[in-house]
């Protein structure tokens, strides 16, 4: 059941390079399961997190195939989070910073992600119960 509370998260890290991306996705998952709405403002490298062109690969060190390795993708996790939001009546709103997208050519995203800008982040913060900014270190 929706709680009526909203959490905004701003994230800057790209996929596959930092533990913060996994932590952020875990926080989103936990919040949605409690029925909280979640806004994500993906800034700089984080706009690559929902790229739908991400593809699984085998692992030549371990000798595993694509199927055996079942390599995860952050875009797959984000799609699952959009689906999970629907189960509790909570809303997930994911905005990719448009200028960050343009300078990276990172334009193809999974369903649910939309283009926006810093103004959306301000609006998110104003309308949220709280905001968590996760900067790059």
């Amino acid at each position: 059941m929706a709680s009526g509370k909203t959490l905004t998260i701003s994230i800057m890290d790209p996929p596959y390079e930092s533990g913060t991306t996994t932590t952020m996705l875990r926080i989103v998952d936990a919040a949605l399961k409690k029925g909280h709405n979640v806004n994500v403002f993906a800034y700089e490298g984080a706009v690559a997190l929902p790229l739908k062109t991400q593809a699984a690969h085998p692992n030549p060190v371990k000798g595993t195939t694509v199927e055996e390795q079942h390599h995860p993708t952050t875009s797959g996790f984000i799609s699952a989070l959009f689906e999970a939001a629907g189960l509790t009546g909570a809303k997930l709103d994911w905005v990719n910073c448009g200028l960050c997208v343009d300078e990276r050519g990172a334009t193809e995203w999974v369903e649910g992600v939309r283009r926006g800008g810093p103004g959306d982040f301000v609006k998110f913060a104003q309308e949220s119960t709280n905001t968590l900014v996760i900067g790059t270190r």
Partner: protein
Amino acid sequence: MAKYLSIVERAYHGTLEEQDDTILWISHMAKKAGADVSVLLRANAVNYAVQGQNAEGLTFGAAALSVPPKLDQDIAELIGAGVSVYAVSDDLERRGIGRGDIVAGVRLIAQREMAKLFDQHDQIWHW
């Protein structure tokens, strides 16, 4: 043949998404490609040598991480492939990790011995 020392310092960055540590992985690939490469674990990365790590159970909505990273096994497999793996004993002690806690075959060196280890290699790859 030239000898390379690959130093891993940052730990657990993207390891769940990649199911590996990227530097342990590329070091193993370099070995497979014929390089005489050694690995030095320092700072937080010494935790990679701790036996019995378990990253199972992670889910996002209905999406599960069905093949989690097994970094202690990755260290053991590196050693099995003929890669010398070192860990800085001072960094282990600072984190309360005992010698009995780590993967067999990891060689411990003191911080003061690192320069000597560097001298035994032709190139240092500090990631």
